[in-house]
């Protein structure tokens, strides 16, 4: 095979590729063997890449009739024991929400990529945005936990895609990979070192059928899953269920299962959490940003420091569950916090809650343009000087 992607051959390589390409390569390296999707800008390159790569590794690609069918097929494949992913953007992400809730409640691992574009509605298909932060967390009805990762470079899209699969499998949860149109279509060099990646696998049921309880969390709150064909013949439902997997409305059983579900991610924060603090120790002003805004903020920090202003950057890489403790540590010596983001204030809302009492200011750009480093630097410098 000559045209094959380098990660498929097991050889490491350094390549100049786009964020969406990196996502497709990361998925293959992580062991993804099923993709279902529906075309939408600016995510379609992921599907196009995987349509070529998956058959080369005995995987399956299918373009479904819409985004609802795509997430449903992905969950169906994962219920069969195969690592599965879908990718979309704004409108498609909205359509997937009901079934993302199903995956969260029935605890079916899967990865959902949302390349954020301007909204609401059809919005600006080819323009970047960061306005789906809250939808990624709260988009489906009811109360449920979910993991959301926010990479900020092409290389990080590659490694975070791999981590998304690992977390999905280990914690039996949907994981959303959330990045903006800029890094999706930006080309950067990436070390494709994931080929030798020892990918995490799901905890599978073992032992006699009579002793097996599909939703018994055991010692780590993560139940072992029965693979169809292994003889357990279990039931999976989106109705509230007990440890046996069958529907129940018994208040104690419902409370017990949902409490375990909510505690599941909290108990594995060491595995899930990821963030970066740059020059925060002595910072008077800490910038909090994700994705392309964090890239701009990194440059802004350099500019501020060059002018003697003590400015740092805190960047959540795992966005949900939000790295609250890490943010508090990073801002321990700060006098003010600046939140540049491409929306009207979604990240600022989180930061204000976590750092109650701290002066928090936002730079909110929702024109379909990325925020310029100089704009962030100017405001951060002024804040550092007490203006």
């Amino acid at each position, binding site marked *: *095979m*000559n*045209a*094959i992607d380098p990660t498929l051959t097991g050889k490491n390589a350094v390549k100049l590729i786009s964020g969406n390409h990196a996502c497709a390569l990361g998925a293959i390296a992580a062991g993804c*063997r*099923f993709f*279902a999707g529906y075309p939408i800008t600016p995510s379609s390159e992921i599907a196009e890449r995987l349509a070529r790569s998956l*058959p*080369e590794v*005995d995987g*399956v690609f*299918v373009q*479904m*009739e*819409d985004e*609802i*069918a*795509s997430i*449903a*097929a*992905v*969950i*169906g*494949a*994962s*219920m*069969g*024991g*195969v690592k*599965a992913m879908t990718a979309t953007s704004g409108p498609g992400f909205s359509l997937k929400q*009901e*079934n993302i809730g*199903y995956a969260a409640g029935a605890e079916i691992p899967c990865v959902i990529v949302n390349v954020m574009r301007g909204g609401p509605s059809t919005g600006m298909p080819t323009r970047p945005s960061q306005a789906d932060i809250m939808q990624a967390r709260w988009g489906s009805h009811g109360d449920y936990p979910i993991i959301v990762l926010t990479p900020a470079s092409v290389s990080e899209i590659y490694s975070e895609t791999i981590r998304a699969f690992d977390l999905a499998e280990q914690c039996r949860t949907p994981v959303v990979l959330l990045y903006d149109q800029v890094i999706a279509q930006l080309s950067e060099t990436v070390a494709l070192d994931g080929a030798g990646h020892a990918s995490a696998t799901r905890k599978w049921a073992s032992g006699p059928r009579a002793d097996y309880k599909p939703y018994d969390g055991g010692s780590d709150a993560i139940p072992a899953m*029965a693979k*169809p*064909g*292994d*003889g*357990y*013949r*279990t*039931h*999976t*439902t*989106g*109705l509230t269920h007990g440890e*046996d997997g*069958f*529907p129940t409305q018994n208040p104690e059983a419902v409370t017990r299962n949902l409490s375990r579900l909510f505690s599941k991610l909290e108990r594995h924060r060491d595995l899930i959490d990821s963030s970066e603090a740059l020059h925060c120790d002595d910072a008077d002003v800490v910038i909090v940003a994700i994705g392309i805004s964090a890239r701009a903020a990194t440059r802004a920090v350099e500019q501020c420091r060059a002018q003697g202003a003590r400015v740092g950057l805190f960047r959540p890489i795992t966005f949900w569950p939000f790295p609250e403790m890490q943010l508090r540590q990073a801002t321990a010596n700060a006098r003010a916090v600046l939140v540049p983001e491409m929306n009207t204030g979604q990240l600022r809302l989180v930061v204000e809650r976590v750092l109650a009492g701290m002066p928090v200011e936002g730079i909110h750009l929702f024109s379909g343009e990325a925020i310029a480093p100089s704009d962030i630097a100017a405001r951060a410098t002024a804040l550092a000087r007490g203006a």
Partner: protein
Amino acid sequence: MYIETAADFDVTDYLRKEMMPHFLCPGCGHGIALRALLWAIHDLGLDRDKLAVVSGIGCAGRLSAYIDANTFHVTHGRPLAYATGLALARPDLHVVVITGDGDCLAIGGNHLIHACRRNLKLTCLMLNNEVYGMTGGQVSPTTSETRLTTTTPLGNQEPHFDACALATAAGAGFVGREVTHHVPKLKELIKAGLEHPGFAFVEVLSDCTEIFGRKNDMGSSSDMMMRQKSEIRPSAYLDTVDTPFRSNALPTGVLTRNDRPEYGAAYRQAASARAGTSS
């Protein structure tokens, strides 16, 4: 005349006893359809460890929970889409879908036509009781003209779908229909569907006795079954028989059968052919 005894078939061997008593209303046609499905599975000797049943939301959708197999009760309208992922990812499994008329033709209509077109090996059992039973008796895409439901207090004015004609037009490789009155025939039809190599669509004319029957003064459960039976005509009589509630009397049995390539096998073949040429 069709002669078969069920002597070697004990339905309780195939049911999850811990789920009994079941939640269906007395006389509900869905229970008969479930029995016919399990009987077909028994006759074919299908390995239940390799049998996956995917169902949507509704009274019909609830049936998967009673079957001692790998069962998945998914979201409203989407069982065919879930089953598509499962069957593509696990070609070693035998995947059966149980869905209702609302689940399959209203909210899930898009998935149905594309499943028919794609022709992936799946057996789709649509239990048509002409109503949304689970939610209390609202009009469905198969409710006959002039029937009363909680959302058609003036009598239904919308024409109803002929699901089998729809499935055929969309390209399903196997399409059939049967009434619950003829259990052995229904069983044989389901068996033929299960054995079909591609997408098989089986419509079961079921009855919602408790809600639809009561609302329309249709009598007892057996009265309703007799009515279903009497509405069924050989196709030659289609245009000559005047039935008050179904303007077109519905033909039963196997209505469509063709040998279009099965999608999963075609995909895998194309993939291995490609791997062979590009090396």
